[in-house]
């Protein structure tokens, strides 16, 4: 049997490589995919009397974008989100996460807002419900309120084309 030893050794080696090399550290599987999006009701930035809840979006495919005014990568994807909003591709809700300095309203007024609503998650509790590890993170939620996709990091044309478009097509939106 010893003549098989080199082969066995090599297979173990390849196994390691395959496991290690193709693990993308950014791909954290979200336990929420395929489950009901956690419920919340939060006041809106700029209008504390109005509020937003995922229940408002029932029957529509929509995108929840977790961002913050202090987040640099969010500024990076801002331009692309503006394009999406202008082309009315999908309704985008921007969860304003841990904005302790309350900068969001002024910032959006200055650079423009791609969001149809900006709920304010001051203490980050809703973010925890969604398993947010950092900003920006983006979720696609379907007509039945089920999370269908989670993306960590900024969105650009390529990510959109490779990851979001096929999913949206699948959802018929």
């Amino acid at each position, binding site marked *: 049997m010893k003549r098989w030893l080199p082969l066995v050794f090599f297979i173990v080696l390849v196994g390691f490589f395959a496991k290690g090399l193709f693990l993308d*550290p950014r791909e954290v599987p979200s336990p929420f995919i395929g489950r009901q999006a956690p419920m919340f009701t939060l006041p809106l930035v700029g209008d504390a009397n109005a509020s937003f809840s995922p229940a408002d979006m029932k029957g529509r495919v929509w995108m929840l974008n977790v961002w*913050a005014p*202090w*987040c640099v990568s969010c500024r990076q994807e801002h331009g692309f989100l503006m394009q999406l909003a202008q082309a009315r591709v999908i309704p985008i809700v921007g969860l304003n996460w*841990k904005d*302790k*300095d309350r900068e969001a309203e002024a910032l959006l007024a200055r650079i423009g807002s791609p969001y149809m609503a900006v709920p304010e998650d001051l203490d*980050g509790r809703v973010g925890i419900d969604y398993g*947010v*590890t*950092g*900003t920006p993170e983006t979720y696609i939620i379907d007509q039945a309120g089920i999370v269908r996709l989670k993306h960590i990091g900024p969105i650009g044309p390529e990510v959109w084309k490779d990851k979001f478009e096929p999913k949206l097509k699948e959802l018929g939106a």
Partner: protein
Amino acid sequence: MKPRHKKLALITLVVAALGVAVALVLNAFNSNLVFFFSPTQIVNGEAPTSRAFRIGGLVEAGSIKREADGLTTTFVVTDTAKSIPVTYTGILPDLFKEGKGVVAEGRLGSDGRFTATQVLAKHDENYMPPEAAHALEQAAKAQQTIVK
């Protein structure tokens, strides 16, 4: 020598060689593996003070100071969340610059100051030492959850 004896001798030889090699490897691993810690981990007290390890991150802008002897340099290594002051005596590599990635090997003093015995020189400007990149990545994640 009979084939059977030859085989036995061969196996003994191989086993002996493997045994020696394994013993040496284990011994060397025990004392010579250099672990890596990010500034955040060090501030959290996860790094040992009893043995040498590596620290990685960015050289904080404006933190490089040279002592009067011209050879001792102090600087601050940061992963953007936490920072550790570092002292090094000797000539620094060409690619050592403020705002650039750095990896240093040395020991942590009880005063929280890291004394480097070696600041790693890398071959390429565009190349971030993997440990430094790792530290920044970790910190970026941590920062977004902790800070603010």
